[in-house]
């Protein structure tokens, strides 16, 4: 079950810089790994630059990360990785309530507001898939023409049908577990006879309890009734392979990454800490794809190397090389500068870092859109106690959700959303179960049996619904760079301006009303509370809410139909630089109500195919 690969041959920067490559890929996350794999499988030579340390391609190194996570006092998304001042990562713990006119520059991100965002990403091998939750929802067909259809956000230059075959590739690569019967709603269409690689992850007891009581429940919006159907959620973690997959050929799951066979990474065991790290490697992350790419023998991996500048020939606009800073280790700021060369260059460093690197290279694009249209999802958390024990804290964080409000005519006036039922209790909102334990012991002096009963009563009844509210593109939300803010290597840090529009807040308010209705129907005690002194607090029509980030950074190099309205074309190629591709969620003009990884993976397959064609033509 382990995914064996030849021992990761890590090249030194001198050799890499002396060699010419067919393609240079910046970032070993899911976009970079898929493109590197697609190209290397066809025999093209690829160099992958990774800003983070070169560890993580063995079980031993992975388990060192796991141990770090277990020992960390704060279990935030990047708790499993060593602090690295040479390639710093945003951490949710660095988010602070902003004072008007005073940016928060205490973390890696410099936050200008007006709304503080607590989203993060990881700068390690495998990128942010290392800590993603692995929900793998397709976008709705209507998400691709939001502007035309609803007058909001931006249209994609391609439609659902065009992307559909690449969704299939992404679902295969990531190993998605889902039942196709549950997923064909709001126009999501599958090829006839399509099944997902693996059967759905079993839904939790909590999901079943919620589903039973919500049967027949509806909410009304603009005179139209929307059902509240509880559906299983597709996820990129190992379940039971579906023998009907691939015309009856079945599916062989991949597991833990290591040069040696280890029988690790089998079926999900429901450990509940997929975010930030799966203890048994049942969850997909991009290292699996990178391992395959390395296995071709055509890929060199150059870690501990931060791309610092994209070099462009001023007459042709073609990229001639990438300047990098390679550092000695995590504890020293000592570094060496060099340049790597290739025929094609791919920036796959995520939406924030791609924009940061382009802007640091004085490449705002002729449209001026690099860094603009920054998007994420606006998460509203609501939480309640169920009337009876429902076995909270078992299973993956979420196994079911409510999808009916992802699409509809109401999107002309207010943002759509989907809701997830959380098996991990109130953790996201209140840091349960740790806070519950502290409260029972310190404040209520409970011990022995009474403490045991208290914990069961408090924790096993917890229900948290997260409402993932869509956020259409808006040019004022953006990433910029500012020479005043630099990291230890002298690279400019991302400066974030982020606000939440009334369109989104209308959706947030409706989500809150929907949650009240759901809790009434469930007979649950609503405990949701939003503190105006906390980061992310917004007020709308007299009500206050806390908006949380979803780590779904997107939109900073949107794709479109021309060099005027976009940074890249539908193959993620820069209009201004014909041998430069900007890959990832940064290319997405609209993200609707889907977690971005599955869709950006589909885009990576499509770009990989395109780049291979281009390289053949050279």
């Amino acid at each position, binding site marked *: 079950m382990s995914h064996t690969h030849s021992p990761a041959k890590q090249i030194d920067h001198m050799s890499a810089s002396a060699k010419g490559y067919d393609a240079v890929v910046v970032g070993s996350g899911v976009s970079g790994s898929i493109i590197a794999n697609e190209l290397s499988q066809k025999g093209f030579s690829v160099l992958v630059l990774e800003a983070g340390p070169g560890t993580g391609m063995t079980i031993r190194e992975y388990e060192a990360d796991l141990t770090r996570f277990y020992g960390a006092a704060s279990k935030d998304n990047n708790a499993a990785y060593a602090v690295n001042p040479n390639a710093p990562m945003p951490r949710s713990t660095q988010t602070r309530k902003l004072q008007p006119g005073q940016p928060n520059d205490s973390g890696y991100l410099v936050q200008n507001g007006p709304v503080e965002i607590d989203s993060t990403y990881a700068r390690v091998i495998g990128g942010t898939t290392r800590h993603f939750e692995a929900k793998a929802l397709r976008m709705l067909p209507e998400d691709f023409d939001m502007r035309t259809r609803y007058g909001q956000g931006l249209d994609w230059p391609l439609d659902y049908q065009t992307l559909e075959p690449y969704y299939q590739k992404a679902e295969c690569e990531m190993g998605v577990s889902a039942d196709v019967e549950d997923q064909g709603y709001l126009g999501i269409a599958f090829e006839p006879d399509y099944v997902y690689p693996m059967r759905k992850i079993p839904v939790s007891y909590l999901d079943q309890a919620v589903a039973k009581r919500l049967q027949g429940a509806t909410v009304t919006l603009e005179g139209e009734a929307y059902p509240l159907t509880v559906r299983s959620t597709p996820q990129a973690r190992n379940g039971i392979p579906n023998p009907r997959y691939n015309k009856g050929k079945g599916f062989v799951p991949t*597991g833990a990454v290591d040069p040696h066979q280890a*029988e690790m990474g089998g079926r999900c065991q429901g450990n509940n800490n997929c975010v930030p790290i799966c203890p048994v490697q049942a969850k997909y992350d991009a290292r699996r794809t990178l391992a395959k790419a390395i296995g071709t023998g055509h890929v060199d991996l150059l870690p501990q190397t931060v791309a610092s500048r994209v070099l462009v020939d001023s007459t042709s606009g073609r990229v001639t090389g990438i300047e990098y800073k390679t550092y000695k280790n995590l504890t020293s700021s000592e570094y060496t500068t060099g340049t790597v060369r290739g025929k094609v260059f791919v920036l796959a460093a995520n939406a924030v870092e791609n924009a940061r690197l382009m802007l640091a290279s004085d490449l705002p694009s002729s449209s001026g859109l690099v860094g603009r249209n920054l998007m994420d999802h606006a998460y509203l958390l609501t939480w309640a106690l169920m009337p009876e024990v429902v076995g909270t804290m078992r299973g993956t964080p979420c196994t079911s959700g409510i999808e009916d409000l992802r699409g509809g005519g109401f999107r002309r006036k207010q943002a759509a959303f989907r809701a997830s039922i959380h098996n991990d209790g109130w953790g996201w909102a209140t840091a349960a179960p740790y806070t519950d334990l502290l409260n029972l012991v310190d404040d209520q002096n409970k011990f022995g049996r009474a403490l045991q009963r208290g914990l069961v009563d408090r924790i096993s009844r917890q229900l948290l619904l997260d409402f993932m509210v869509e956020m259409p593109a808006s040019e004022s939300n953006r990433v910029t760079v500012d020479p005043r803010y630099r990291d230890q290597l002298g690279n400019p840090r991302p400066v974030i301006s982020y606000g939440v529009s009334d369109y989104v807040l209308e959706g947030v308010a409706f989500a809150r009303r929907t949650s009240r209705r759901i809790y009434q129907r469930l007979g649950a005690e609503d405990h949701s509370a939003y503190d105006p002194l906390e980061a992310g607090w917004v007020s709308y029509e007299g009500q206050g809410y806390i908006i949380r980030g979803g780590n779904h950074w997107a939109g900073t190099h949107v794709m479109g139909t021309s060099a005027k309205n976009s940074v890249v074309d539908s193959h993620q190629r820069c209009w201004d630089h014909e041998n430069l591709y900007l890959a990832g969620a940064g290319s997405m003009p609209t993200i609707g109500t889907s977690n971005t990884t599955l869709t950006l993976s589909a885009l990576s397959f499509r770009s990989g195919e395109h780049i291979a064609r281009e390289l053949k033509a050279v």
Partner: protein
Amino acid sequence: MSLTRITSVAELHRHLHAALQLEHATIPPYLTALYSILPGTNGEAYRVIRAVVVEEMLHLTLAANILNAVGGTPDLTPPDFVPEYPAYLPDGETDFQVDLQRFSKAAIETFLRIERPAHAEAAGKPRVVKRKKPARGALRASRVADDSDEHFYSIGEFYADISHGLAALQDALGAKTLFCGDAARQVTPDYYYSGGGEIIPVTDLASAQAAIRLISEQGEGIGGGIFDFEDEISHYYRFQQLTLGRFYLKGDKPGHPTGGSVDVDWNAVYPLTTNARLADFAKGSELRAAAADFNAYYKRFLELLTRAYAGQPQLLIEAVGEMFRIKEMACHLMRNPMEGRGKEHAAPTFEMASVAVEV
């Protein structure tokens, strides 16, 4: 001369029941060594033993599928199903002792012996030998017949005989008569999936022989090679990596692995008492109660597996949760020193017979 000693369906059933007992008999010693490793240490060793024990569970289930296919009913609950340890396994002309013991050089030596390829023909020996019966702890596995002192030379010969027997009985009785089992009893990938080879539902001679091939080759490789027909490293060479301190890569020669290093700390282990027995625990102690609880739980677990193999394969999903509990209960014992045993710690005793009687 007939290649097989199996001449009737009843004899075939007897051998397959013995195969179930044999496959299971390696699990308590492997689990004892595995769980004795101090948490957070000996990662490579832990994963090597774990990989093997997971495959032994696969073999157990494959043996159940074969038995079900030929109309038998697997039963993991007879009083002598779990042998008394030290148990004795056949190896050439002698039986050798298998202890329930902590992770140690001695334990790995025993594991190597369990998994070592031994073929009568290659050794220039007869396929069936007379062997002195040990006083207790002997497995039925290699005995040619209940009332005989004759044994198969090795486990490999034992499985070869089942394979030949299946073919001979099909010739004699026809496929329909031999493979008369209820297909609904087969454990399929829907209910079983782990690493190291897929579960094979058995419905005919070809699938039965594929299952046998998987069982024998996962243990000892192809003709004693490092890798099996699925390119998977065999148990023998997996264990050898621990004594040689290095992982095998494809293309390596036996005895000369060239992969990454395997660092073993033989001291990072709970100092378990060897072959613990309930009688060794102080009467009335909490630890004794915990050891008895473990046995009772394990017995119920074997009953659950028996039901799963007898037509309710969906129970295997539930059984996965129970396995976590087995680990938790075993580790609970192992963390505690035993009264009157100096520095030695407690360990599960796997005495199923004691369950009804105690405490």
